[in-house]
């Protein structure tokens, strides 16, 4: 799937640029992708080291376990495949909480740790159902305070930049619920198909 998308994006882009007369631009885009990636990594790496360090203290002291106990009813409903008390539940719950408070750069390392420990469970290079559920939780992006969007609204002189918060909360909460339902339906269809 990923291989196909990778190929289609590149071929469609290059062919269109020839037809459109912008092929001179494509060479720049190709080279720029290397520095673009490095810019992302450059931003991500130190923050990831920082948060993995801090959260390892919380993990070792048992604080994350306490956190996942609070979320246990929700987690066991969403992730029936993960055995109770498994460490991936700790990481999933910390990822969820950090996402809610808009701490995106702290949520990502926790998400990766969650994926890592879920991979230990499934022990294959195929995405498990739990991994996909977790991915959907992240892509539907349930946020209480959308900081970036508020700052953009301020930039363009909104009379009340934070008025977006209640609308965003309602909308993203419903989206999250629908996302989980869709996930369950697709999972069932996929199981029947294979």
């Amino acid at each position, binding site marked *: 799937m*990923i291989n196909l998308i*990778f190929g289609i*994006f*590149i071929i*469609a*882009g*290059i062919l*269109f*640029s020839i037809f459109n007369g*912008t092929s001179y631009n*494509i060479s*720049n*885009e*190709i080279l720029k*992708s290397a520095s673009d*990636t490095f810019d992302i990594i450059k931003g991500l790496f130190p923050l990831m*080291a*920082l948060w*993995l360090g*801090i*959260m*390892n*203290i*919380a*993990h070792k*002291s048992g*604080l994350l376990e306490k956190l996942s106990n609070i979320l246990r009813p929700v987690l066991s409903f969403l992730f029936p495949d993960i055995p109770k008390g498994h460490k991936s539940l700790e990481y999933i719950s910390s990822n969820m909480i950090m996402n809610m408070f808009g*701490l995106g750069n702290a949520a990502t390392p926790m998400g990766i740790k969650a*994926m*890592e420990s879920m*991979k230990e469970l499934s022990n294959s*290079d*195929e*995405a498990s159902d739990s*991994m*996909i559920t977790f*991915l*959907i939780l*992240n*892509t*539907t*992006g349930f*946020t209480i305070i*959308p900081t970036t*969007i508020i700052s953009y*609204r301020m930039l*363009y002189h909104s009379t*009340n930049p934070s*008025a*977006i918060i*209640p*609308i965003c909360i*309602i*909308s993203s909460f*419903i*989206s999250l619920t*629908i*996302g989980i339902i*869709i996930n369950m339906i*697709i999972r069932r269809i996929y199981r029947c198909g294979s």
Partner: protein
Amino acid sequence: MWILVLIIVIYGLYKGNNIYDDFIEGAKESFGVILNLFPTLLGMILSINILVGSGLLNYIFNFVKISLIPMEVIPLMLLRPISGSSSLALLSNILSIVGPDSFTGVLASTMMGSTDTTIYILTVYFGSVGIKKTRYALFNGLLADLFSFIISFIVVTLLYNCFF
């Protein structure tokens, strides 16, 4: 954020752990993660740069016309799952044209706020731990995004007058 760090450190000390050693051990793991992530991310950004840079998406936008929702948000809906930085630039552009407190401005902001860069998240999460077969993940993620956009539209339509 500082409250979080304070609680974690106090709780760690209270449990009698070697918290500095724990910190170092955790931070060290970032090397492995980044090492796996870099090639995956590079591949994805290469293909997305080519696609976005070719202008193909802009060409498609000219043909997509849905009378129900404002024209301005259609490119945002298509770009949002693919590229975080491009969609943020687009949001900024929309807000500067229609104004942040207009119906379209609020709709665009809500759409941005209730979704995320699905393909980026998929690449980072699966790429960094070496998941190669993603099964129904991408389809599921994109479908959830589509529904998020529809829900944003319904919620903003219903609540716009209450808040603005």
